[in-house]
C-alpha cells in the first residue's frame, strides 16, 4: 500500500512536526517568536477584517433585498423591513457595546487609570488549554508587553506580546497566570493563580494566620510602575476557603468578577494612577462597618495618606476622578506620549 515516496514524505513530515513541538516546548522566546510575529502581522489585518464581517452575524436580514423584480412591491417592503430589523439589531448591539464602554470608563475613572479601549477579535480554542485572546490595539496605540488589561467588571489579564496593530492577552484564568492580590478592606496579600477553568482562581495568602471569608473581594496589589499589574483593580470574590487557620497554607477559591468567556470591549492600562486607589474601584467597597477603622488606621500609616475614605466621602472623589478621563477616542489619541516613554 505504501510505496517508497509516500513513506519518505510521511516520515519527513512527522519528524518536522516533532522537532517543532520539542523546540516550541523548550519555553522562553524560542525560535518561533519571529515566525509568529510575521504571521501575526500578515494575518492580523485579515483577522480584523474577518471580525468586522462576522460581528453582526445576526444582521443577515439585509440580504433579503435581492428577490426577483416581478413582485417588486413585496420585495421593496421586505427589504425595508429587513433594513429596519437590521438597524434594530445593530442599535441593540451598539447599546450593549456602549454599556460595556461605560462600565470600563467607570472603573478607569474611579481608579484614575489611563486606558486604551480595544476589542477582542480572536480567541484561542478551548481544547488548546491556553486562555489567550487577540485584541485590535497594538504597538501603534502605545501598548507594550506586560500591560494590564481590564474591562467594566475588573481584571482580565495582561499583554503577552504585541504587533503593530494587534496584541495577545493572556487571561487571569490561564494556568500560567499569577497575580499579586490583596483582600479588600484588609492588608492580607497573597498570590492568585489561574486554574485553567473560566470560573475559578486559586488564592494563597502569604500569612498562614489570615482569616478569609466567602464574600470577601480581592483587588490587585500592584507592581512597580504598574507593570504587569496596576494596583487597585477588582479581581473577584472568595467563594470557598479550604484549610484552617494556622495551617501552612490557606487556599481560597475565587470567582472572577469578569466573565472571560464572553469578552467584547476591554481596556489596556497604559498608565497606572499615581496613588494606589485601594478599594475604591470595587462596585461595593467593604468600607461600611467591620473594616472601616482598621482600614483608615493602617492605610494612613503605611503608604498613601490619600487613600480613599469609606462611603460618605466617596461621591466627590468619584466626580473629580471621573473628569481627567476623556472619551475613548481621545484617550486613544493621548497614548502616543505615554507609550513613548
Amino acid at each position: 500500500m505504501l510505496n517508497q515516496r509516500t513513506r519518505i514524505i510521511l516520515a519527513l513530515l512527522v519528524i518536522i512536526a516533532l522537532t517543532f513541538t520539542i523546540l516550541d516546548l523548550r519555553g522562553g522566546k524560542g525560535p518561533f517568536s519571529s515566525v509568529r510575529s510575521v504571521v501575526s502581522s500578515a494575518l492580523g489585518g485579515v483577522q480584523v477584517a474577518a471580525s468586522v464581517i462576522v460581528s453582526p452575524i445576526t444582521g443577515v436580514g439585509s440580504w433579503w433585498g435581492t428577490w426577483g423584480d416581478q413582485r417588486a412591491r413585496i420585495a421593496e417592503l421586505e427589504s425595508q423591513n429587513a433594513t429596519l430589523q437590521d438597524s434594530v439589531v445593530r442599535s441593540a448591539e451598539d447599546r450593549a457595546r456602549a454599556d460595556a464602554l461605560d462600565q470600563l470608563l467607570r472603573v478607569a475613572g474611579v481608579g484614575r487609570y489611563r486606558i486604551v479601549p480595544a476589542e477582542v477579535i480572536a480567541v484561542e480554542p478551548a481544547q488548546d488549554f491556553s486562555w489567550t485572546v487577540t485584541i485590535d490595539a497594538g504597538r501603534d496605540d502605545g501598548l507594550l508587553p506586560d500591560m494590564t488589561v481590564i474591562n467594566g467588571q475588573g481584571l482580565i489579564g495582561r499583554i503577552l506580546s504585541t504587533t503593530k496593530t494587534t496584541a495577545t492577552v493572556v487571561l487571569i484564568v490561564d494556568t500560567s497566570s499569577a497575580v499579586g492580590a490583596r483582600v479588600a478592606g484588609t492588608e492580607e496579600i497573597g498570590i492568585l493563580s489561574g486554574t485553567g477553568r473560566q470560573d475559578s482562581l486559586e488564592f494563597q495568602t502569604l500569612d498562614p494566620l489570615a482569616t478569609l471569608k466567602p464574600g470577601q473581594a480581592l483587588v490587585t496589589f500592584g507592581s512597580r510602575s504598574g507593570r504587569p499589574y496596576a494596583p487597585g483593580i477588582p479581581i473577584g470574590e472568595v467563594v470557598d476557603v479550604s484549610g484552617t487557620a494556622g495551617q501552612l497554607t490557606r487556599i481560597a477559591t475565587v470567582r472572577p468578577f469578569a466573565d472571560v468567556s464572553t469578552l467584547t470591549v476591554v481596556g489596556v492600562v497604559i498608565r497606572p494612577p499615581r496613588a494606589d486607589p485601594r478599594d475604591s474601584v470595587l462596585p461595593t467597597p467593604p468600607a461600611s462597618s467591620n473594616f472601616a477603622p482598621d482600614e483608615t488606621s493602617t492605610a494612613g500609616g503605611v503608604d498613601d495618606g490619600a487613600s480613599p475614605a469609606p462611603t460618605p466621602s466617596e461621591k466627590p472623589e468619584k466626580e473629580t476622578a471621573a473628569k481627567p478621563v476623556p472619551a475613548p477616542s481621545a484617550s486613544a489619541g493621548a497614548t502616543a506620549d505615554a507609550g513613548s516613554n
Partner: protein
Amino acid sequence: MWIRQTVVCASIIVVAVMLQLTLLSRLGLPGATPDLVVVCVVALALAYGPVTGAVVGFAAGLTLGFTPPAGGVIGIQALVFLVIGFLTGAVIDPRDRTVPILVGMVGLSTGAAALAYALILAAFGSNQVSWQEVPTLVLTSSLYGLLLAPIVVPTISWLVRRITPETAI
C-alpha cells in the same frame, strides 16, 4: 494540475482557520470550539487520498499553530492532523462512501484530535492540561464535528470535483 489542487487546499485551510479563530471560537458554545479545520482536513483527505490528506493536515496544523492568538504548541496539531488526514484517506474506501460512514469518520476525527492534543502535550511533560475538562472537550468536539460534517464534507467534495475533476478520487 497540481497547482490548482494546491490552491484549492490552501484556500480552504486558510478560510477554515480564519472562521475557526474569529467566528466559531467566539460563539461561546459550551465545551470545545467546533473544529472546522479538522473537518476540512478529513474532507480533503477523502477527496484527494491519504498522501495529500497527510500533507494538508500537516500544513493546516502549522497554520493554526502560527495564527494569532497562537496559544497552542507549534507542531502538535500538525502531527495530529497529519495522522488524521492520512488515516482518513487510507481507511475509507472511495467506493463505499455512504453518508453515515463519512459523518462518523468526521465525528471520530474531531474527538480524537482533541484527545490526541491533550495526550501529546502531557507526554511532552507539560502541566497545562486540565484533565477534568478533557472528557467534555472530546465529547463536545466530536458532537460539533458530527453537526458540521453533513454541510462541510459535501461542499468541499463538490468544490473539488468542480475545480480539479481530473485529480479527485
